[in-house]
């Protein structure tokens, strides 16, 4: 049985990868990937911390159900926006989308 801290380690590494992608990539879809990875890191953390309690509580799992649902909604709306932007501008590179700057 591995200690729970190893689950936190995986979670932190996922968070790091997500932040790395968020800061270095300029492709809108790639940024969505990073956001989803960060969501997953948070979910893993929630479930592992719920197990840390003595006795373990079920609230962590309930919260993760809500988080997953929210992440799915976010992906649906985000991808619709990306499709719309790619139709209007033929481009989804966020550094080149500067029309709103005026």
């Amino acid at each position, binding site marked *: 049985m591995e200690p729970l*801290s190893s689950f936190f380690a995986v979670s932190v590494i996922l968070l790091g*990868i997500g932040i790395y992608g968020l800061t270095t990539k300029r492709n809108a879809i790639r940024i969505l990937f990073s956001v989803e990875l960060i969501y*997953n890191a948070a979910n893993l953390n929630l479930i592992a911390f719920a197990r840390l309690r003595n006795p373990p509580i079920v609230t962590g799992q309930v919260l993760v159900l809500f988080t997953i649902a929210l992440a*799915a909604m*976010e*992906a649906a709306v985000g991808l619709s926006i990306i499709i719309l932007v*790619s139709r209007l501008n033929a481009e989804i590179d966020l550094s080149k989308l500067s029309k709103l700057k005026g």
Partner: protein
Amino acid sequence: MTDLLFLAFAAVTIGAAILAIEARDLVYGAAALGIAFLGVAGLFFLLDAAYVGWFQIAVYIGAVVVLILFTVMLVGPKMGEAPLGLKRVSLLAAILVSLLLGMTGALANATAFPGKDSCGSGCDLYLLSTSLLKNYGVQLEFMSLVMAAAVIGALALSKTDRGP
């Protein structure tokens, strides 16, 4: 046995996450993202959260990854491939990531975290259901409003007056 499974799932998750961010082709990136989600679902199973794990598989891999793959194929896998050209930002990110990794090392050495033992009532499916509906009923209603807004918003966004 669990140790081996944990190592396998952790390695798959982290490797696939890196591939998702770094793969040249976005279709490969989306597929790698799906595999990373699968690895996280496996970690959920190891934490005895079986229902949440299958929820994760059905929603993330069944729905979100399909949507992402469709969008990538529609937008074109090669579109938006800008050269990085952000030396300073990526350096900052690398430092941040290594700080986080160092924190991880500190965490792994800490003795404050006990090993996980039997889960008992913390993973009971019926308790989860009761808790979801009795304690989080109001939140569920807000969730339904968010979902309704998301569907209507997404449908309105993807509505086109032109033909297909």
